[in-house]
């Protein structure tokens, strides 16, 4: 395995080196770095051109300029990183740090969301092949896949930001809108859950009535502007999740697992209550939250260990997931509770540009909401497109596996459908998806160019694009370095994950 990894790393370094030469030559020949002076009849233009030629070393041959750049990069191994200066004299290293930080913030969430949603949808559509649900998701996937990003982004800003902001000033849904939303949700849920015609009809009707009623009540209590979630809802949603996770992983027949996961929720609720009374969550820090999360995870896994019985490992996984979901719900509850004060600080909550509101005055939760609101639209856009890809691949891979002989064997052994799908089919279906997900992450870092630009994020894409516009090789090469290394690393990770998922590869 080590030899395999070393060989891959060695090859990757060579590929990166070759690509960097090519990239450098292409960039410095892509335009005229003095273009902005050419149409100027300012007598000072000549002096300005001279000073730029000297600063960028334009008179040197390409290999000298490249070598200078490479020497600076080589310094990174000795802790003296120098990626050069941009055309206006800023250190590219500082620019890259800032840009990489904001791109990662943007891409990480989008990737996670896309994986969870995409793989989930893929499995569901595979199980419900050729159902109305399947067709709808397929249609949606192709639609999103075909969307031009810049156009979708502009639409998203129009409806998700400008019109939403107009609407939230009042925060009331019209009765017609409520009925339409309820009907759509009813159709979706009925299709998803499936069953006989009578059962689907019942599901649909119940959903419709429930959603419509809730939305009318929300209107009445002005929920959209003054929302609350509360401990009861935290417990209810977490308990629901606990049951669902147990059903998926071990089956509800394993009572020990069910009780362990429900205990996790109960303990979580008690801790939340204690923290809330102690006021720890009023103004936390990210570090504190991370610490609490690690603690919560440890407690959950501990509960699994002590209550797990014969299937300790499995139950520990269930309680771990449940603990994570419960923690998430606590955060959601806090965020929702601070929505009203956030609206008070920022009457138009979603801006069309920027990663955050500059000099935003609020406390921890308000500024988290501010950053979250700015993250929402671009993440949605990036995720939508990746979800489309992931769900298609998962569906295809899942369908292929479901038709295999060993799945039929598993069924004929009398295993439950859950066990067949989760244990036998899904694990094997994951193998090809791993590669795609890894590549997708690498591609997202580079591919967020347009999204970043349209949403005014100063990320890697902006670095690349601005450098290219000015025919300034240093920022473009920094972009190349980060995305190139990310692509190579992700590729490597995919190979390793592959090996752990499929023992045949390890040899």
């Amino acid at each position, binding site marked *: 395995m080590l030899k395999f990894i070393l060989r891959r790393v060695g090859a990757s370094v060579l590929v990166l080196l070759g690509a960097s030469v090519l990239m450098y030559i292409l960039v410095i020949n892509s335009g005229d770095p003095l273009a902005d002076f050419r149409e100027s009849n300012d007598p000072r233009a000549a002096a300005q051109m001279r000073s730029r030629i000297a600063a960028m070393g334009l008179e040197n041959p390409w290999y000298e300029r490249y070598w200078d750049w490479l020497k600076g990069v080589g310094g990174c191994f000795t802790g003296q990183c120098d990626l050069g200066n941009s055309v206006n004299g800023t250190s590219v290293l500082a620019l890259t740090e800032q840009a990489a930080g904001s791109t990662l913030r943007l891409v990480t969430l989008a990737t996670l969301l896309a994986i969870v949603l995409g793989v989930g949808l893929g499995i569901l559509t595979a199980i419900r092949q050729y159902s109305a649900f399947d067709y709808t998701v397929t249609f949606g996937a192709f639609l999103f896949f075909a969307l031009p990003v810049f156009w979708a982004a502009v639409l998203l800003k129009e409806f998700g930001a400008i019109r939403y902001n107009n609407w939230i000033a009042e925060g009331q849904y019209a009765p017609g809108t409520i009925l339409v939303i309820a009907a759509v949700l009813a159709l979706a849920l009925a299709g998803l859950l499936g069953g006989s015609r009578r059962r689907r009809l019942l599901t649909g009707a119940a959903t419709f009535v429930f959603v419509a009623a809730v939305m009318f009540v929300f209107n009445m209590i002005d929920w959209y502007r003054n929302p609350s979630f509360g401990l009861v809802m935290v417990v209810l949603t977490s308990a629901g999740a606990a049951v669902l996770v147990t059903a998926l992983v071990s089956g509800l027949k394993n009572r020990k697992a069910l009780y362990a996961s429900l205990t996790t929720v109960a303990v979580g609720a008690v801790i939340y209550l204690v923290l809330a009374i102690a006021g720890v969550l009023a103004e936390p820090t990210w570090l504190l939250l991370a610490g609490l999360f690690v603690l919560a995870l440890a407690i959950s896994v501990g509960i699994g260990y002590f209550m797990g019985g014969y299937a300790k490992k499995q139950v520990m996984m269930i309680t771990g997931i449940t603990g994570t979901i419960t923690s998430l719900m606590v955060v959601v509850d806090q965020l929702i509770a601070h929505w009203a004060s956030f609206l008070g600080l920022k009457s138009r909550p979603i801006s069309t*540009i920027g990663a955050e509101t500059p000099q935003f005055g609020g406390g921890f939760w308000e500024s988290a909401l501010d950053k979250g609101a700015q993250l929402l639209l671009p993440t949605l856009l990036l995720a939508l497109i990746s979800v489309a890809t992931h769900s298609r691949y998962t569906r295809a891979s899942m369908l292929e596996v479901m038709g295999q002989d060993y799945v039929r064997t598993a069924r004929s052994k009398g295993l439950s459908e859950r066990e067949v799908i989760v244990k036998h089919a899904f694990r094997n279906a994951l193998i090809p998806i791993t590669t795609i997900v890894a590549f997708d992450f690498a591609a997202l870092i580079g591919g967020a160019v347009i999204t970043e*630009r349209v949403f005014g994020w100063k990320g890697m894409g902006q670095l690349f694009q601005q450098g290219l516009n000015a025919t300034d090789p240093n920022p473009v090469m920094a972009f190349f370095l980060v995305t190139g290394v990310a692509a190579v690393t992700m590729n490597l990770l995919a190979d390793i994950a592959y090996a752990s998922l499929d023992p045949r590869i390890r040899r």
Partner: protein
Amino acid sequence: MAATGALLFSACNTPGGGQAEPTETSGSGTVEPTDGCKADLGDVETAEGEIKYSIGEDEWHAYNNDTGATNSTYNTVVNTQLFSGFYYFGSDGTICHDENFGSYEAVSEDPLVVEYTINEDAVWSDGEPIAYEDYLLDWATQYFQADGKPTVDGTEEPLFDFAGGMTLGTYVTTFPEGEVGGKTVTYNYDRVYADWEAAVSDTMPAHIVAEKAGTDVAGLVDAIKTGNVDILTKAAEFWNTGWAYEPGDMPPAEDVPSSGPYILDPEGWTAGQAISVIPNEAYWGPAPATSKLTFRFAAPETHVQALSNGDLNAIEPQATVDTVTQLEALGDSVTVSTGQEFTWEHVDFNFASGRPFAEDQGGLALREAFALCFPRQKIVDDLIKPINPDAVVMNAREVFPFQDAYADVIEASYGGEYDEVDIEASKAKIAESGLTTPIDVEISYNAPNERRSQEVALIKSSCDEAGFNIVDGGSEAFFDSELSAGDWDIALFAWAGSGLVASGQSIYSNGGGQNYGKYESDAVTEAWTALADSADPEVHLEQQKILETELWKDLHGMPIFAHPGVAAYSSELQNVRQTVAQNGLPWNAEQWSMAS
């Protein structure tokens, strides 16, 4: 990546403005301007509030925007709020005196001696008076070569990386006169300098440079006067790079004092997002109208939606028909103002031997034939008027249609003979030129540029009828190599105005550095020399009339239009005025206020 390409293209925004239109706002706080200079708002009280503006996605990064590396509108747009000086460019590009800052006059015209008097109350925001030493340093940054010797012709390697080069240092070769701490500075010019007014305005704080160079103001002044290379080099090092910062790294207030109505907000720089300025308590002039200005770093194509969402309050989007339609669809909450810019589109003929329009080929007759079929009015009607309804065909090179002198210059120089397309007359002129039709003519320009492609198409549809065969010569290498190499028959491009009178000399004089078409005319060259050798605006105008007349007579080329500009702002914003000057809308940002 095709989509990226489209976006990249549209991102090439030209920061700049258009001519001041009579604004439609009628809020009580709006003061109608009487000329291109800032309106007198009387007693201003700073109102609480924040006004957000963006010029583009590039981050502010330097307090000193006079260096070659930092001289960009992204820096100057913010720094304009931090510095005041003897003059500023008004909304029509003319030089306006800032009486709050001080006054100046040419006490003698030949030899040129200019005396500047700084306001007694003028101080940096740290309390240090603005005085002689600041101007001495300003001059020194344009005077010393890298080895500490004075410049001879301005082309040597300079000590200070002054973006404008060492031009001033070649004209003023003796130390500006004055006393340390004194409020008057006198410049003795060796030769008359036509653009002397633009040569001196605001300065960097000498006391900060002195401190960073390890000395004090007296020490720095002494070093300049004695040519102390040691101290000068340290000073230059700081001046060149010490005032540039990395994103979000707000410098300590004592390093970046302000001489203008605003100072940098110590809390106001969020990396990648925005930088804010807040009122300068030490500013002696009228207080700024609003307590905070925020410059956001956002790409131009996001501006319209950001304006509609209130993320920005004033924008200058790309002047395209699409943006204007989009802006107008936003309704009454947004005021749209269109005008002209300080950039003018034109065609130039190539006079180099062997080219169709050269004297040894078709000569003047063929140039006239082309001018007669050149549909300038149609180009303006079809391509420019949808953006700026008041656009006109431009008939001069040295003055713009929005300037006072324009009518005067046109009357003296241009008889209106090429106002209308006349295909028959054009055919006759071609016959006179003796060339056989169809005559292949390549119109070269920098591609991709949609508007210029359309212009060429319009020219082709008209001139092909007369007997030309117009070839679209759009090329990505146009500016890079083709233009200066003279590899074209007709060049289609634009010159950006600089606000200087003598800047066109190198374009039209015999053998001038920017005379790409090898045009030769002794009359024009003489007129330019006379213009450049005078400090008298009357003489400037007189010579402009002569050279415009000659350029029309010889048909050096043809001006087409001044580029259109678009600005838009929330209607509750008062005193926003479009300008043709380079730094765009915020040229009078200290006067902006929100209607209450």
